[in-house]
């Protein structure tokens, strides 16, 4: 038989508890190497759309809040265009990186609410922010999405949410408004409220 000559993806390893040293040194207090951390905001002044703030925690199977988790987010602009696509808002960079507070475990993302981007079949996905979650004890980054409870019609028509077989679990992907422009989104790694994670 012939050889495919294909390489395997490098196996993932945990980010460990010290991920901030490499990825968010200024957040950690290790100033002096990089002027600023990358990904402190997914947008520039003048980004179009509704400014929103999402706060949350990542909670383990014992109910403990992770204080060493780092999260990255990636999203479309208010019209559903990703950075680099034709027509995309030049003030939306789309990518952010944030960590749990070392004391409280809360993380915060200030962004704009994304628009609906097309799925491969042309149907529109519901407004969403993709998350990639790494921490000590997580062997390979976890992929999930923040969707919005106040986008019920778009959620109902979303081909990605339709992939979730157990419909009661869709609620784990919904951020809830706690005040105008402010949302709450906790991520549960295990248990009855375990968040839906994707294999993408």
């Amino acid at each position, binding site marked *: 038989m012939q050889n495919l*000559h*294909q*390489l*395997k*993806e*490098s*196996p*993932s*390893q*945990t*980010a*460990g*508890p*010290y*991920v901030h*040293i*490499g*990825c968010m040194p200024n957040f*950690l207090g*290790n100033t*002096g*190497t*990089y002027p600023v951390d990358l990904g402190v905001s997914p947008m520039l002044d003048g980004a179009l759309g509704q400014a929103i703030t999402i706060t949350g925690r990542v909670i383990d*199977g014992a109910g*403990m809040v*992770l204080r060493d988790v780092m999260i990255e987010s*990636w999203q*479309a602009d208010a019209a559903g265009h*990703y*950075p*680099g696509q034709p027509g995309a808002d030049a003030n939306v*960079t789309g*990518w952010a990186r944030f960590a749990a507070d*070392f004391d409280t475990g809360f993380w915060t993302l200030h962004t704009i609410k994304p628009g609906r*981007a*097309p*799925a*491969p079949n042309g149907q529109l*996905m519901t407004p969403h922010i*993709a998350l*990639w979650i*790494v*921490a*000590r*004890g*997580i*062997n*390979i*980054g976890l*992929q999930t999405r923040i969707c919005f409870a106040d986008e019920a019609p778009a959620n109902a028509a979303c*081909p*990605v949410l339709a*992939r*979730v077989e157990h419909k009661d679990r869709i609620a784990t992907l919904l951020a809830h408004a706690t005040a105008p422009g402010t949302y709450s989104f906790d991520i549960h790694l*295990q248990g009855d409220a*375990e968040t839906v*994670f*994707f*294999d*993408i």
Partner: protein
Amino acid sequence: MPDTAPATGPLIGRDRNWHPPAYTPHYKTSVTRAPQRALVALGSTLTEETGPAFGHSILGPLDNNLILNFTGQPAIGERIIVHGRVLDDSARPVPGVLVEIWQANAGGRYRHKKDGYLAPLDPNFAGCGRAITAPDGRYEFLTVRPGAYPWPNRTNDWRPMHIHFSVFGTGFGQRLITQMYFEGDPLIARCPIVNTVPSADGVGQLVAPLDMNAAIPMDCLAYKFDIVLRGRRQTRFENRLEGM
């Protein structure tokens, strides 16, 4: 012009048998942090096929020189070059992507508020570096060999010498964090984090060989570490699943 990895197109699914599973009880912290439900399988969408891009303007001149990039005075330790390429599944270079590393100092101590190991901090070592891959996919760091260190897990677990790597592709779905180990380290086989990788071949992919051809006489040794990102499908026959 080299044949480089495509920057658009559907991502090839991850081989979950090649990567560590989430639940690996010898690495104790994974027990309460491993999702227990099956992952929801999803072909890549525009969200995962696009991703952030970083220009060379973010880089300072010493960003890939961990020996000098904290205070300008040299860090203590065995000087080494760590270099390699970022490749796709067809061994094509992935140019222009960000590679970030972090590591303990020569004594095995991290500059982090949560690390209380008794080995001292090096006042001239922060332990972070970054680079953007060249058109041929290459990156290069100058650093010191990190020390092994003990960690609370089983009664006497030690991490082998290692460097943490964070790598971007051209799509957010290619995001990867891994660790590089050093050829010949007897602690590799004993490490429960290394051994979350299911196969010996997979572990071997994370062990960098000594590279005497890249070592600089009377200056530093070198280790070569290639990183492979998941690839993109290139078939011209593209059917879309109903409902997606």
